[in-house]
């Protein structure tokens, strides 16, 4: 036993003391784990898609960027976006009876809006595709992952390849859609890729936003 009783025992806690400390510790661990779990599960549960397969760049005669007096270029027939694993034939899209953009009849194929310029001719060519079906990913599921500098390839009916480089990726609320920026005239050959994005409204069963990727032709 030590004399000079101003100091408490220094040799350590008794067994009972240690048990009390461990109880405090266990309690804090449990509370901490509970709080962590609560915070982490506040995020919604996101379905998983199959792993991304990056594709090789397509080969073929690459079209020159057109001069202003150029003749009409050939119609687009297919689309390849290697960095997000997209390869698709291109169907033709028109307008619905209410004047909105028609969408492809299946979720596994993209479409070119025939009222827009042909990809690779002067102007803003428009291609749209679904982000998902009712059960899984659609052809443009990974569209929002594109970044400036990524390449987009459009093959045309005459076998030539128009090559585009992404300049911007934007998301817009559908009820504030910037029609002029997306569909308006431009003096060089450009491309807009459109799909849905943002929050999915379960009451109307539709996405509230559109993702638009802007790209311009490079030679």
């Amino acid at each position, binding site marked *: 036993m030590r004399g000079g009783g101003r100091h408490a025992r220094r040799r350590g806690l008794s067994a009972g003391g240690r048990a009390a400390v461990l109880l405090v510790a266990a309690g804090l661990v449990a509370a901490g784990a*509970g709080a962590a*779990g609560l915070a982490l599960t506040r995020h919604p549960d996101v379905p998983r898609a199959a792993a991304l397969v990056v594709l090789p760049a397509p080969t073929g005669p690459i079209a020159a960027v057109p001069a202003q007096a150029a003749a009409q270029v050939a119609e687009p027939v297919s689309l390849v976006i290697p960095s997000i694993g997209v390869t698709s034939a291109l169907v033709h899209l028109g307008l619905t009876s209410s004047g909105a953009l028609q969408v492809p009849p299946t979720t596994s194929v993209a479409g070119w809006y025939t009222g827009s310029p042909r990809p690779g001719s002067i102007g803003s060519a428009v291609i749209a595709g679904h982000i998902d079906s009712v059960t899984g*990913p659609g052809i443009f599921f990974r569209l929002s992952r594109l970044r400036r500098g990524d390449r987009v390839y459009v093959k045309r009916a005459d076998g030539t390849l128009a090559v585009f480089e992404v300049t911007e990726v934007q998301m817009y609320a559908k009820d504030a859609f910037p029609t002029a920026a997306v569909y308006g005239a431009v003096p060089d050959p450009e491309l807009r890729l459109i799909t849905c994005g943002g929050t999915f409204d*379960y009451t109307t069963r539709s996405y509230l936003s559109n993702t638009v990727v802007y790209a311009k032709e490079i030679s």
Partner: protein
Amino acid sequence: MRFTRFARRIILLAALPLLLLAIPAVSAATASAATATGWIRLAHLSPNTPAVDVYLYSFGDSSAQIVLHHVAYGTVSPYEQVPTGDYTVAMRAAGAAATSAPVLSASVDVVAGHAYTVAGLGPESGLRLQVLDDQLSTPSGQALVRIIQASLKQSVVSVNWGGHMLQSSLKFGAVSSYQTVSPGTATLTVSGGGDQATASVPLAAGTVHTLVVLDGPNGLQIDDLLDAAGSGTDPAGGAATGFGGMAPRSPSSPLPWLTAIGAGLLLAAAGGLRLRSRRVPAQAAGGKHRVPADRS
């Protein structure tokens, strides 16, 4: 009683899960906005002026951003996309040194999303560099067309497209204003003096054209420049391109986690109370331990 090192270590380890909550969520980054840009093109439209070299300088720069060599009459370059700001266009005789004094120069202020044509116009004796503001948007479902009269031989011309008289008497060196026309393909007829030129010109909806009247090798000649194109008819609103199969589903019930938090706090409180109650017997034991001040 002081906490021992053992106790401190245990408490710190227990606190780690709480610290992990402070790690901020990583948000997906979208591409940042691109630099603001506009477009410039350069044109030589003076019939009796020899070929020139055309230089484009960003204001204040001594080295040219773009140089076009040996630009002859009738040439209109494609649009170049340039960052917004002030530019200087200088014309020198073809082959002249880049350091020599230019024959002509003009300044252009490029505004975001706008396009400009810088054209050498008029006769050689009265050559001028004119900066034209180019239209890029059309009224929905229509086409826009303007005419540049660059024929010296026919000093005044009339321009007719599919029966529409676009310009009845346009003078040499003049640039007409833009006119809206209903889309279609029709015969363009340019007449002046005893001369005439015709061409089949499609003016599609959503397009902007500049028609240039030139002195060709065989008389009047027409150049149809497609300045810009967009959708002939703009779709209304956005695109219904999703069915929700990959949309995030709502979060699960918080109940199990709240239970864990509550139980953990109760355990910690119980342990804390035990620790506190252990102090009291130690102080009451008397002489061997610390003597409270008021007993001395």
